């Protein structure tokens, strides 16, 4: 147990006469566990920043279609491999955000079409423009997008991150991919959480041979190399399955391995708490087992489970990205970060169009943020420690 000044008895504290310190101490003593956890969490600056980053990404996931500038599935052979375009904020008339139109030039030697900006043609960028139709939050049908260009010819558009081989806007695809990749991570972790809490709980609560059996199962699962196993299972999914069916199958496959860590945490907490005085006291007062678990034990280890969950999420996201990258995960027309990176697999293509790698940025950012968040939560999970 660490000794913090605020928890010292006032008599031994030389600053006890100081009303400020006394007030702080009273605040500390009266705070609920949730408040204490929050105060402790706030001290981990990186974790707080990460929380905002993750909230931002989930915001993107929810409003993906609104943020997309053009239809992420619309192909156009005339605009393949357009480099990223910058937005110019000012022109000779003052503030007038615009992008330049593009001029296709065929390389006389290789006959490859490459694009260069055409300063003579200005396409004004405006907020809340009309584009393709989608359902906002799955409810409201609309065609308003956050931004876009006004009055362009067909095929013209704004390509903040360039286009892929089929002429699809990478920025818009990235927005939609964020939704798929983040939701599959969340769904996978929910499923592993369920398995982990159930099996870990049974293991820690009953002990004996059930515990032994589950522990051996966890050890077995952990000693098997996961990627070959996933690949084998994923490759067996029938080709005829729809996008949604594959999505759920992949979620199940990645969570089949991911639950072991969570089960370990839950089991460990159960074993530790079973011996605690307050649990014994509850038992002796005749509380039912259900009441002991949900009223007394659960609140004291829920925070640990939350921390373990946020540390398990990045692994889920990496799994999905890896599988889709290999072509064994989600299949087009589904768009996920892994599928976007699949286009970057060929080094020749990548050398000509390095912007195809841009999906690496959100992958890295989200994984980093979840790691920091999990770290902060783990520290905060035990506010009395």
């Amino acid at each position: 147990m660490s000794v913090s000044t605020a928890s010292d008895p006032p008599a031994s504290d030389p600053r006890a006469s100081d009303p400020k310190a006394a007030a702080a101490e009273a605040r500390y003593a009266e705070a609920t566990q949730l408040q204490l956890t929050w105060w402790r969490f706030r001290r981990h600056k990186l974790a707080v920043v990460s929380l905002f980053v993750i909230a931002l990404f989930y915001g993107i996931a929810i409003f993906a279609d609104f943020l997309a500038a053009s239809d992420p599935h619309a192909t156009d052979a005339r605009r393949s491999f357009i480099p990223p375009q910058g937005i110019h904020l000012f022109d000779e008339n003052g503030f007038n955000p615009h992008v330049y139109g593009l001029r296709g030039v065929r390389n006389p030697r290789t006959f490859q079409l490459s694009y260069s900006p055409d300063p003579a043609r200005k396409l004004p960028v405006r907020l809340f423009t009309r584009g393709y139709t989608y359902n906002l939050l799955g409810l409201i049908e609309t065609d308003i997008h956050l931004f876009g260009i006004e009055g362009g010819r067909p095929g013209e558009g704004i390509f903040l991150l360039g286009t892929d081989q089929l002429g699809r806007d990478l920025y818009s695809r990235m927005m939609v991919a964020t939704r798929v990749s983040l939701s599959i991570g969340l769904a996978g972790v929910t499923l592993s959480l369920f398995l982990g809490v159930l099996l870990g709980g049974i293991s820690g609560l009953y002990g004996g041979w059930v515990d032994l059996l589950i522990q051996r199962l966890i050890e077995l699962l952990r000693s098997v190399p996961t990627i070959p196993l996933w690949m084998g299972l994923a490759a067996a999914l029938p080709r005829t399955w729809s996008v949604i069916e594959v999505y759920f199958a992949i979620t199940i496959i990645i969570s089949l391995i991911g639950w072991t860590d969570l089960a370990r945490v839950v089991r460990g907490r159960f074993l530790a708490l079973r011996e605690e005085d307050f649990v014994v006291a509850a038992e002796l007062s005749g509380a039912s087992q259900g009441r002991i678990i949900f009223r007394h034990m659960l609140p004291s280890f829920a925070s640990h489970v939350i921390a373990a969950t946020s540390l398990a999420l990045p692994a889920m996201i990496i799994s999905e990205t890896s599988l889709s990258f290999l072509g064994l995960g989600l299949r087009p027309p589904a768009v996920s970060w892994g599928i976007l990176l699949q286009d970057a697999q060929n080094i020749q293509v990548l050398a000509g169009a390095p912007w195809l790698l841009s999906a690496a940025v959100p992958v890295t950012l989200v994984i980093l943020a979840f790691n920091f968040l999990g770290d902060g939560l783990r520290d905060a999970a035990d506010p009395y420690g």
Partner: protein
Amino acid sequence: MVIYLLRRLGLALLTCVFISVLTFIIIRLPPGDFVDAYIANLAASGSSVSVEQAQAMRQEYGFDRPVVVQYAFWIGRVLQGDFGVSMMWRRPVTEVIGDRLWLTMVVSVAALFLTWMIALPIGIYSAMRQYSFGDYLFTTLGFIGLAIPNFLLALILMYLGFRYLGLNVGGLFSAEYVQAPWSWARVWDLAKHLPLPAAVLAMAGTAQLIRIMRANLLDELRKPYVITARAKGLTERRAILKYPVRAALNPFASSLAYLFPYLVSGSIIVSLVLGLPTVGPLLLQALVAQDMFLAGTIVLLLGIMTVIGTLISDLLLMWIDPRIRLEGR
């Protein structure tokens, strides 16, 4: 000690059985059986198989029996070293895999050694100079190492190598050695190509191990015996390297058990990006073409390789930790 050893051996055997069952399930998952696929494959290339021949093949592989018997058939053949025939290559699976399994092993083990070589000194440094600039620097680098999936790192390195050095940084051999028989020159060529894939693979594991080493050593450094050692006038170097570091070494040995499967796993996908001649690309091809005997064999062999790794880790632990060695005496 004997009991500990026997328990570990038993567990390793159990894991092997478990992996073989999983592999069998993977082989059996696609609709239709191997003979159907084989016939379809032959038909596609113009030749045909009579009904009797197909029936004979089914009998040979036991496909007309219940699943449990089929499993027994298959595992019996595997134990005799017969892994079946690869449909794609029309050759025995063992021939197709050839050197690739050993190269997978070489890359994974190289990555493991690199992990240890980097994590040990940095872990010690970070614990001794806790909260120093270097400590923060390595912690930050470690987090970034954890956050970049290794195949992405491989892609980025490939791109940079191609763009700025104009060379292909992938592969395990120079062009003239790809097909050459084994010789010292070829081994040396392999050694020269090894650092890049090994470093890419080692990234995440190193970051993790540094954190564990740092935490463990910090715990040890606070113990009274370190103060005693210092009070007795041992040099700082000796006071730290001789006792606390040795006590904190345990996670290194046990890292073999959990890092090794992870590295083998990672080598599959990194091999694909970097074009390494390991089992990785072969496994992907086999899975896409539903060449299930080949795919199943690779999964099985990789699994058994990691089981052996785990077993070695247990032996190592026994060697460096007397608490385990003297257990039950």
